[in-house]
Structure formats: structure tokens, C-alpha cells
């Protein structure tokens, strides 16, 4: 069994999965339930001068039947009394001394910040997270992402906190900025012990086409919100990796943004995260997803012979380089397996209209001087390799057809529909392999 526990700048946690600051960490009762289910840590819903929140607050983006691949929110920080939050932090920490409890803070003045740092330490918090990322509402009041977008201000506030803090200080960054490295370096230079990213992406998730108002709407009006969920993961991965690759940043990173499964978590870790945080996935599915996250990550590490989660941290980050360092002599070409191709010809349409016109239908002639595919390397069963042959790729469907009754189920026959790739025209872009509905049917083969 791989070792899942981590030490994040001195904050210990039995596994790398922390609840991110947000609705799932709003109350002590919630965090207790999460810890009972196995979460390794929790970053409390940001504590500040209590706010009044709007109704409604959330808007989802669905993709087909999949609900909420993206979620936007216009909820602000905690609307509960400061003391209530600290009292509950104290109770939770006493009950779960082995878990990481981190107080997320957002205040205005130096006095307030420093008072609340002390109050957090009194409550027994293991660390502090400075919320410099919230992209809606709080930024209009000069806080949240307004700080994260101004490295000078970010540095100053971090210094205020570090003047008094005895526990690790984590700075949470906003992605709503041109270069994520700038504020990260400012934070590190000001003494931050760790970095947390990404906060939500400023967004407008949609328009209600019946009422012609933005989503979500508050009495018929809307305001840009913070975007999260699976849709933002690629943005988050890139930013995590930007920091992991920068030599000036020597503090641990807590990655978040669309983490839904152990696979997502493993990717964040491989690109440089020591811990990963989860919010939207819990809002969608509940705390119970932690069971598979721990189990899946553990099995993955075992399968790959990695002894601890710490050993995975940043393992893929070194392979990320500037574009200019990529090998221009490396070539791959698409290769369609006629044995598994079902003849939908989606690759043909994509390559013709959105690619490089390198995929052709059976019967289309090969331009002179161009190279046809060598199907013998893919399939021994392919009848004849010439692209002009109508029966190319034909094979016996009988073994795969369970219902071969004559008139009831005429077998669809793809043998005359298998497209072929003009090896001279193919640029190796991957598009056909991405849209092919059959796993493994279109392979990208390295050309020597």
C-alpha cells in the first residue's frame, strides 16, 4: 500500500485530499461529516466581516446528458458570525487532531488581518489560507481577486500576516490574471509557506433564452461569477505547472480547479501539487466521493510501483517545456484499424472540414506520389492494401454478430465504409483519433 499521507509546509494530513474553502466547509457539522468519511483536510469557508448573500447564486453548464461540467457562483464569503466559525474550528480540530484544518481569511486592514491570524491560531487551526482569489463581489470591495491581481498589494498583506503568524501561511491565487507566476513570486518573497490555486475563473455561464436574462439571475439581473468544475481543470493544470516549473517558487503547491476523481487528483499531483482541494465535485456528489478518491489513488500508485504520493509530486512537470523546445523532427501519422472501424466516417468529415483533408473514402484515388497506408501492419485480415479497392478492410462480421436473423436484424456492414489515410497529407494532428467513437481504432503511429 502506497503512503498517502503528506506534509504540506508542516501541515500534516493523512491523505492529500482537502475540501476547498466553499459551501462544503461552511459549518462545523459539515466538516465533521466530511472527516468521518475520510477527507484529509478542510479549508474553512472564508472568514471575514459577515456578508449578506444574494439569492439565487449558482448557474450550471451541462454538456449533453452530463450535468454541471461547469458551475458558476456569485456567493460571497461566510455569512456567519466570525466567532461562530472559530468556535466550530476549535471543536472540529479537537475531535480530529490528525486532520488538517485551515482557516481561510479575508479582511481589509492590517489590524483586522493580524487579529484574525491570532484568533485562528487560538482556535487550533493548522494553517492559514489568504483568500486573494474571489473574483466576484469581494473584489469590488478591494479584497479577493483585487488583491491577487496586484502583486504589490498581495505582497504587503502577506507581510502583515507573516509578521504575526506562527502557523504556515498559504496564499490562494486568482487565475484572472495574465501571468500567474507574478503574484506567486510576490507571495513567496513575502514569506508565504505555500501556494493554493486556482480560485474560480470570472465568468458568465449563460443566458436564459426565454427571459433573456443572465444565469444565475437575481430579480432579473445577473453579475459575472466564479467558474469551477471539470471545465476549468485544464486552466488550473496549466497554472499549477507554471508555478511548479519556476525555480523561484520553492514552496509546496495545493492544486484545485475541477478535481472530481482520483485521476484528476493524480494529474494535479504529477504536475506539482502536494495536496489537492475539492469543492464543486462535493457540491455535486457529496462527501462520499472521497472513498473512491483514496482507493483509486492508492491502487494507481501501487500499480505504478510508486511508494508514496510524495514521490508522484511534479513527476510530469519536467516534461512541460516551451513550445520552441519541442522536436520538429518527430512525426506521427493516423492509422485506422479496419478490423475495429465501424464505418461511421466521422474521421473523414472532421479531417475534410476541420483538418487537413488527409482522410479519404473507399474508392477515392490516391494522388500520384502519395503514400497509402500499410494495412498489413495493422491487420492480417485486410484483404488488399490498395486504397482503390472497394473491399479493403473487409472482414468476417459473423463472429461479432449475435443476432444474425435474416430479416429481423440486417447486419450493418462497414467493410465498404472504412476510410483510409493519405500518409503524405496527414500531419499527425490527432483530430481523427479524438473524435473516433471506437477506442483504439485510430492509432497515431510514429514515423521513423
Amino acid at each position, binding site marked *: 500500500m502506497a503512503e498517502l499521507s503528506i506534509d504540506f509546509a508542516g501541515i500534516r494530513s493523512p491523505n492529500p485530499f482537502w475540501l476547498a474553502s466553499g459551501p462544503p466547509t461552511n459549518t462545523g457539522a459539515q466538516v465533521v461529516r466530511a472527516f468521518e468519511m475520510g477527507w484529509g483536510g478542510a479549508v474553512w469557508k472564508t472568514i471575514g466581516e459577515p456578508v449578506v448573500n444574494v439569492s439565487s447564486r449558482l448557474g450550471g453548464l451541462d454538456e*449533453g*446528458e452530463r450535468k454541471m461540467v461547469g458551475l458558476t457562483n456569485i456567493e460571497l464569503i461566510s455569512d456567519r458570525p466570525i466567532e461562530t466559525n472559530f468556535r466550530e474550528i476549535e471543536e472540529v480540530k479537537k475531535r480530529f487532531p490528525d486532520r488538517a484544518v485551515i482557516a481561510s481569511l479575508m479582511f481589509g486592514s492590517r489590524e483586522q488581518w493580524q487579529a484574525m491570524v491570532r484568533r485562528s491560531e487560538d482556535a487550533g487551526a493548522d494553517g492559514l489560507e489568504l483568500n486573494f482569489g474571489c473574483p466576484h463581489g469581494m473584489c469590488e470591495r478591494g479584497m479577493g481577486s483585487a488583491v491577487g491581481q496586484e502583486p504589490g498589494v498581495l505582497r504587503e498583506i502577506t507581510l502583515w500576516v507573516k509578521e504575526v503568524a506562527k502557523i504556515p501561511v498559504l496564499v490562494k491565487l486568482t487565475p484572472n490574471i495574465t501571468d500567474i507566476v507574478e503574484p506567486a513570486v510576490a507571495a513567496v518573497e513575502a514569506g508565504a509557506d505555500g501556494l493554493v490555486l486556482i480560485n474560480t475563473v470570472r465568468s458568465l455561464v449563460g443566458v436564459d433564452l426565454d427571459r433573456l436574462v443572465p444565469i444565475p439571475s437575481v430579480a432579473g439581473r445577473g453579475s459575472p461569477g466564479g467558474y469551477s468544475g471539470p471545465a476549468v481543470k485544464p486552466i488550473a493544470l496549466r497554472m499549477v505547472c507554471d508555478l511548479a516549473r519556476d525555480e523561484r517558487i520553492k514552496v509546496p503547491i495545493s492544486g484545485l480547479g475541477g478535481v472530481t476523481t482520483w485521476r484528476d487528483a493524480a494529474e494535479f499531483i504529477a504536475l506539482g501539487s502536494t495536496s489537492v482541494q475539492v469543492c464543486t465535485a462535493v457540491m455535486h456528489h457529496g462527501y462520499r466521493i472521497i472513498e473512491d478518491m483514496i482507493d483509486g489513488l492508492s491502487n494507481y500508485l501501487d500499480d505504478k510501483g510508486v511508494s508514496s504520493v510524495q514521490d508522484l509530486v511534479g513527476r510530469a512537470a519536467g516534461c512541460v517545456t516551451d513550445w520552441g523546445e519541442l522536436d520538429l523532427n518527430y512525426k506521427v501519422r493516423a492509422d485506422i484499424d479496419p478490423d475495429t472501424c*465501424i*464505418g*461511421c*466516417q*466521422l474521421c*473523414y*468529415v472532421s479531417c475534410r472540414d476541420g483538418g487537413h483533408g488527409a482522410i479519404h*473514402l473507399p474508392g477515392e484515388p490516391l494522388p500520384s506520389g502519395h503514400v497509402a497506408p500499410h494495412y498489413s501492419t495493422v491487420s492480417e485480415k485486410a484483404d488488399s492494401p490498395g486504397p482503390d479497392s472497394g473491399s479493403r478492410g473487409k472482414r468476417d*462480421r459473423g463472429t*461479432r454478430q449475435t443476432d444474425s*436473423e*435474416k*430479416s*429481423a*436484424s*440486417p*447486419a*450493418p456492414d*462497414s467493410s465498404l*465504409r472504412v476510410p483510409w489515410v493519405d500518409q503524405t497529407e496527414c500531419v499527425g494532428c490527432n483530430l481523427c483519433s479524438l473524435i473516433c*467513437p*471506437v477506442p483504439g481504432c485510430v492509432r497515431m503511429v510514429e514515423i521513423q
Partner: protein
Amino acid sequence: MRNSRSKLSTGRIEQGFQSSKLPYSDGQARGEAQRCLYCHDAPCTKACPAGVDVPGFIRKITTGNIKGAARTIFRANVLGYSCGCVCPVEALCVGACLLKLAPAPPVEIGRLQRYATERFVGTPAGAYLLLATGVKRTGRKVALVGAGPASLACASHLVSCGHEAVIFEKRDLPGGLNLYGIAPDKLHADDALREAEWVLASGVELRTGVEVGKDVSCERLLEEYDAVFLGVGLGRDSRLGIPGEDGPGVHGAVETIEKLKLDPAFRLEGLFRASSSTCGPGGAAEAMQICDMAGAVVIGGGNTATDIARELACLGVRGVTILYRRTEKERPGYAHELRAARLAGVRFVENTVPVRVLRERGDAAVGDGRGAVGMAGDAGRESGGTVAEKVGPLKGLLVANAEKAKPVAGTECEFPARAVFVAIGQAGMPELLSRLPGVESDSSGCVRIDEKTGRTGNPRIFAGGDCVNGGREVVNAVAEGKRAALAIDEMLR
């Protein structure tokens, strides 16, 4: 359109049948539609006789453009709604779905087509989808004989080309076999009627109760109209042509299905020979006769045979057997339909042919009476003892093993039956066809046409549907009606 429901009385037996493929909810439809691969040069569309752009309309369902999906369907097939319900999709579009090779379940195209069209059929919003706007009237007139699917499709296309279309129908209601011949677990008559009247409302004139060749002469049609389309179907059930056939207990399958669907006074028990001990008068007899709904023999290997057999079994008839003169492999009906019939309890016996209908008394050569089998059966039932005394109640069939569909001498044996249903095809309309100059038919009674245009031997007469193809699907009739409409339009321009 709503009032069309009142034209059919309630209490029809078919109302007890529920669709085996339930309508989709919005979410179910969207989910199923998203499974469609959206194939290039899609095999499902190629497999559709009417040429419906299947991936095109399914894509529109995924985007919530249901009206657009319906329009895509109706443009290719005005009876897209009923075809969504009744098409043997397993043998057409769904059978060609490439997802089957993935391997994954094929997309349920029929149900999606029903989903896309159902809400528009019979509504003003739906009529808007059918009406052709901005079409110049040509002043040309086309007469269509028979108001079944072929004529409806042909007339609708003619109207959209600017021609005048007048349908002559000898019955009271439009729809043809779509109305009175579809298995009730696929489509109810009131829905077929609603659809037919809705198609007619797009500008087709319908004259019901008018039989061409009797109430109006063929010559007059050819005089008054620029072209004539024959969509007359195949008429009455064919006869077995064996001794003892005429008399109580032997019924035509098409005729029986029609009664199940349309006649509220029809009682299935009346088709079965009552047990001798229950021949008492009044309610007691009826109660006892329910027990007699057993021992039905269906003759034939086509889809009508499977339909009637399954319907009988579903209605509680015990012991329903299909006799077929060839092997199961050779039968023309769909295998999936036979499978469903078997699940309902129907027994299928191959290589067996009836050679004589056996009767209790007077079992003899009285079997060459006149008229259709169904009429003879009715007469026997309705007139009580009188005919029965002459002919005798049904006892069963004398059947023989068949080799290449012919009885083998010496293999005869008795096959007991309380009711026999003849489903060996329909007799055709030779009388009507003989009155149309230039119109020829082949040996099986089907109208001879040019395959590209549907034109008969008479250049101004076109034909389509069952009377041409010998009895195929609604979608084939639609395709053939469209084909003729295109040719007629070309001729009249």
C-alpha cells in the same frame, strides 16, 4: 382535428392494447439522441424507403429544436408519425445502425421519430410544418383512388407542388390499412385517423363513400382529371381454396384485425365454435363461451399471420398456432415479430398445409360457396343455427406435411381448431383494374408499373402502395406515393 376522435366509438378491443414502445420523455429522448454518432453518408438514411435524414433530425433533438426535427421528417415522409410507431425499424434504419458494430445497442430511431413528430400531428402548429407556402397553383387536377398511406403521401406532395388533389375513398374514413390494419400494440386507429385528417387538411380534398368503378366511372375520372393515382391496396383476404372453407369458424385475418380495431360491437368469442354443452341461449352462453377462446389456428407465414396470432394470444386465446407451408427460414415475415408472438405464447408449425376444413356435421364438399371467407363466417355466426345446420360447426383442419409448399399425400392428419384465421395474403382488386384502360397486373394481381416513376401502362395513370408491391410497409407506400407524385408533377408542368 380533435373531433376526429369522436368518429370512432369507444369500446373497441384495440383500446386495450398498449404500445410496446412507450413514448419518450424529453430527457429520455435527448439522452437517446445523443447516442447517435451522426455518421457521414448515414446507413440508416440509406435504409429508409422514404429517405428520412435520420442523423439530421436526431441532431435537432439534441439541440432542443424539435420543430426542426419534425419538419425534417415530414418533408421526407408526411406519415412520419405513424411510421415512427409502426415501421419495422429492426429491418430498416435501426438494422443499419453502425453502433451495432461498436458494439453497442443501436439508436432507437423509431421512438425518436415518434417523439419528434407526435406533438405536431393534428395541431395547427404541426399543420404549419406541412403547408407549402408561396406555391403557385397550377390548375392541374389529380384524382387519387383510395385514401391509404400511398395516396395520402402522393396527394400531399402534389398539393405542395401546386396541383389540386382529390382522393376518392369507398369507406367512410381516410387512412386505409394504416387505420384498420395496423397491429394495435403499434398504432391505434384514432391516432392513424388523426394523422390522416391532418395530412388532408394541408389542402387535399377527400370524397368518402365513393367507390371508383361503381359510384364514379373510371372513364369520368380520366376525363375530369389530368392524372390518376391508384393507391387501392389489395382488398379482401385471399381464400384457402380448400373444401369446407365456407362456413362458421373460418375468418379472414385482415378482416378480423379491422374488427378488433374499429368495431365496438365486435366480440372475439363469437369467432370461436362454442362447446356443445354451452349452446344455451342468453347470458349464460356468453359466459361459457369465454371458456371456448382456445384452439385458434392461423394459416400463413407473413406479418399479418404473426400479427393476428399475437393479438389473439394477448386477448386471452389459449393455444394459438400458426401453420406455415414452408420452413421458418423461408417465411417472408419479420423474425422479430415471430419472436414477439412466441413470447405471447404462439406456437409456430412449419412445413404444414391445410387440405380440408373439418366440420362436425355435413363435413363435405359444401366448401365452394361464394363470397369472402369472413362474410361466410359472419353469416354462420349471425344466423345462428340455419347455416350451421347446413355446413356444420368447425371441428378442425385436415393438414398434411408439406414439401416445397405442396401437401405430401398420405401424411394427412387432423388438427383440432375452434377458429381458423386465414392470413395468406389479399385477393387484389382485379375488377377495378380491368376497367382501367392500359393498366396491367402481374400473375399475383399486382399492378405493373415503371420502377422509376410508378407509371402504369396508361401514361396518365400511376400507382403505388400495396396494390403495386403486393403488401409491404407503410413507409414503402409513402415512398411509392412520393415517387408517383414527382413523376406526375413532372408530367403536368
